[in-house]
């Protein structure tokens, strides 16, 4: 038995050693809760919301939004000023003389040019590559490079050597410099020439994807793949101590699924920012644990609350009992997609190919009742795609509202009439309206919404439906193959222009899951692209939105998303400071929050807040 005790003792000692060597850092000035750990710290490869928010803390684009201004105006960031040419095609940015990287090296125009070229290179596999195609020659370069790599891949293996791949890269760099309208005129001046006047280009340059990367650091982790000719990057550069940033914060420590620790960048040009010296960001996957962690004081800001009792929290808030839950209107819309193609994948004719049928379906839905009875968390019911009021100068159309009479008339006009009295409409050939499968992904409210929609359609139109929920991966695959009848969908805008939504309906767009293709609509977008007068351009885009939301309906909008934070308001009801509350949070629909701007209300403010 003593032998067993020895083993016990050894194990306990080992355990103690492991625990002792793995101590956490002291609490930070500001602690955030996120739902999932970051996917990447490489700004050009980001596409998730929380990654992008982190990018604004550690990187700094040339310009930024004033997110506390209701008009969301654009103000200087790393660039202190910029000029736009008379034809609105050339932008010249002047970078601050005192802008530096976190390692003390000066920030240069070359860093931006390098970063933006990375985004355009197909090798980088940037989700947002197309956002750079507004730069002159960028799209052509993307295609040129893709073709160049393909041609290289077809060479016999003996010719695909390291030297050949390096030469290939040099050729691509030379081609980029010669054909793409991006030029570092000097160390501090960046000149960008656009394909055509793009009124939202400045807005794009505020976006995290347009952040710079520290060229020398990244290059240490880039190599060429002799077999494919493509550049490959080792992601080691995004981890401290390697990662070099130019934003208000630098990355102190990143431990996967444990903590992201930021500290003020000592080389940042502004004296005023960041307001908090250290920031700790904790990924908490379990939603319930996340809320409990906030409630018990682990964090001052829970950035993404999705618990299913959120409606109850909001109810409490309305009674004044739960001030910490903060519903924010977001820049996005929840919708259901119609498959718009002529036939389903199994060869059956698709009734939704007829826009009248789509309109009939849209007008049978009482979105107000769905939002208030199913989602129950204050979302605005949606009759249009672009959240009204979110884009300055854009006038939203009315869209189609709940109108069962007109819905039935539309369906009849499309030839679907209940001819044999069984309650289900038939077409002229006597074939009944197919049972509509409503495809969604598991683990959310989509099944409830699907059931409510189905009930409405059965009531109003006599159409039978079936709700089918699949795992996200399978659902996503079905969408990609256009193997669905109707499917849930959602979209968040990326930049402050209607095309961030409208591009979704463009023929052949990578995010056009519906297979919607309408030459009239494509023509409108093209016309808007050519239009140089901003006001006229907005009119064309408003017409495009009206056209798709009142006539052709590739999607059926249900509600405009709300996003839910938890944080304590900065002041109590009587106006006194509320210690632990947060100041300088933006409530603008675009929901851009700059972590470096946020301030925690302290205990000792104004000689001791109560």
């Amino acid at each position, binding site marked *: 038995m003593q032998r067993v005790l020895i083993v016990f003792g050894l194990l306990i000692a080992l355990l103690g050693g492991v*625990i002792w060597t793995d101590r956490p850092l002291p609490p930070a000035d500001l602690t955030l809760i996120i739902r999932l750990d*970051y996917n990447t710290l490489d700004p050009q490869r980001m596409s998730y919301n929380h990654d992008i928010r982190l990018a604004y803390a550690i990187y700094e684009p040339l310009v930024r939004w004033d997110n506390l201004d209701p008009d969301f105006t654009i103000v200087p960031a790393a660039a202190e000023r910029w000029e736009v040419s008379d034809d609105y095609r050339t932008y010249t940015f002047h970078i601050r003389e005192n802008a530096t990287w976190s390692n003390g090296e000066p920030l240069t125009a070359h860093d931006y040019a390098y970063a933006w070229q990375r985004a355009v290179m197909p090798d980088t596999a940037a989700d947002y590559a197309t956002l750079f195609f507004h730069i002159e020659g960028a799209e052509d370069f993307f295609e040129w490079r893709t073709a160049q790599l393909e041609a290289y891949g077809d060479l016999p293996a003996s010719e695909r050597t390291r030297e050949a791949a390096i030469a290939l890269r040099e050729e691509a760099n030379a081609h980029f410099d010669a054909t793409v309208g991006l030029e570092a005129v000097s160390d501090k001046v960046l000149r960008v020439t656009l394909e055509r006047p793009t009124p939202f280009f400045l807005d794009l340059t505020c976006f995290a994807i347009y952040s710079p990367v520290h060229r020398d650091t990244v290059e240490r982790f880039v190599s060429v793949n002799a077999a494919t000719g493509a550049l490959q990057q080792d992601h080691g550069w995004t981890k401290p101590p390697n990662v070099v940033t130019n934003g208000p914060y630098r990355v102190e420590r990143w431990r996967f699924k444990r903590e992201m620790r930021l500290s003020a960048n000592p080389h940042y040009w502004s004296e005023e920012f960041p307001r908090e010296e250290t920031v700790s960001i904790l990924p908490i996957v379990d939603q319930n644990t996340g809320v409990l962690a906030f409630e018990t004081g682990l964090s001052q800001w829970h950035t993404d609350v999705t618990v299913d009792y959120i409606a109850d929290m909001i109810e409490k808030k309305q009674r004044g009992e739960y001030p910490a839950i903060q519903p924010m209107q977001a820049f996005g819309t929840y919708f259901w997609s119609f498959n718009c193609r002529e036939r389903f994948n199994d060869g059956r004719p698709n009734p939704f190919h007829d826009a009248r049928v789509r309109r009939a379906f849209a007008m049978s839905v009482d979105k107000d009742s769905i939002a208030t009875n199913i989602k129950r968390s204050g979302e605005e019911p949606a009759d249009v795609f672009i959240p009204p009021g979110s884009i300055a100068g854009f006038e939203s159309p009315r869209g189609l509202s709940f109108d069962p009479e007109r819905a039935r008339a539309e369906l009849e006009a499309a030839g679907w009439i209940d001819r044999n009295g069984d309650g289900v409409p038939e077409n002229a050939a006597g074939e009944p309206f197919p049972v509509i499968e409503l495809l969604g992904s598991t683990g959310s409210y989509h099944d409830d919404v699907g059931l409510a929609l189905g009930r409405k359609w059965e009531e109003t139109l006599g159409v039978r439906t079936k709700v089918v929920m699949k795992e996200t991966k399978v659902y996503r695959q079905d969408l990609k193959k256009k193997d669905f009848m109707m499917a849930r969908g959602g979209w968040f805008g990326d930049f402050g222009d209607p095309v961030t939504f409208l591009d979704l309906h463009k023929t052949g767009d990578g995010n056009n899951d519906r297979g919607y293709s309408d030459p009239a609509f494509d023509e409108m977008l093209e016309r808007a692209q050519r239009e140089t007068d901003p006001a006229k351009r907005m009119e064309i885009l408003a017409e495009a939105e009206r056209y798709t939301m009142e006539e052709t309906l590739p999607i059926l909008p249900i509600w405009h998303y709300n996003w839910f934070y938890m944080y304590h308001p900065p002041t109590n009801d009587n106006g006194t400071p509320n210690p632990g509350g947060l100041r300088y949070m933006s409530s603008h629909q675009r929901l851009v929050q700059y972590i470096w701007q946020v301030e925690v209300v302290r205990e000792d403010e104004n000689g001791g807040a109560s």
Partner: protein
Amino acid sequence: MIGLIVRRLVQLPMILLVIYTITFVLAWSLPGSAVINDEGRQPPAAVLEAMEKQYNLDNPVLFYWEYLYGVTGLKWAAGAITNDPDAPSVVFDFGPSFRFEDWTVNELIGSSLPVSVALGLSAILIALSIGLFAGVVGAVKPNSLVDLATLAVALVGISLPSFVVGTVLLILFPVWMGVGQVGSWGRPQDMVLPALTLSLPFAAYIARLTRIGMIEALQSDYVRTARAKGVSMGTVVWKHALKNAFLPVLSYLGPAAAFAMTGSFVVETVFRVPGIGQHFVDAVRNKDLFVIMGVTLIFAGMLVIFNLIVDVMYRWVDPRIEQ
């Protein structure tokens, strides 16, 4: 003893190869694509194609062999010999993660496995303490109130799912009593509640095993002889009976330790433990092929090795067992 160890260690690679092959076939046949985003914006189609090509996602046979080449260390060895600058920097290269783009599977396992091992070890130690104590007490006075109480606790431990136990503990201690902190990880005290939650099913099983073994041992001739010679009950239990009653527990400890130390999805998510258990579930959900295979191989390897350790300990504790 040496023969046993050598034999098992020779078997290990073959077992792992079989497990790898089965896992590969299952993971490959998961629906969906590993490289497309579940939500939001998709990269241009040309980019997706290039990515699938880069990771051999368009060619299962090539994928199978390339992965084997990297994970066995052969690629590293070949690179070291030919001085290839593209050679992997680690000997056993488990590949990249598709979902968490900045991390390799080696890094994921490297950061999460020690956490799970420490937590699993604590859980097993707690389980042994509770289980042995409850089992012995129950066996000394079978069908007494104490025995029934431990039986009830064991039943609860086995049948209550850990998300219930975990959530109840969280609400009871940090939320109501203010002891500990929800969502905190890294301080020694943060490990107590998750380790306790993780240990309960194991404790229950150990308690039942001990009780049965103990009752049997206490009825045996040598115990009766010892008692007749005037040896006290405590000494008999501790010195004679427990030794025999412990053997079934010991053989259960091998698989139990492997399971406890490769983490639990539920315990890890409820208590925000950055362990390896969540990768088993998340990787399948995300079709993160390299992660699926990495964690499965690690788990299989640990299972084999822990069973070996238990077998060795068996012989050490009880020298009568030779073959």
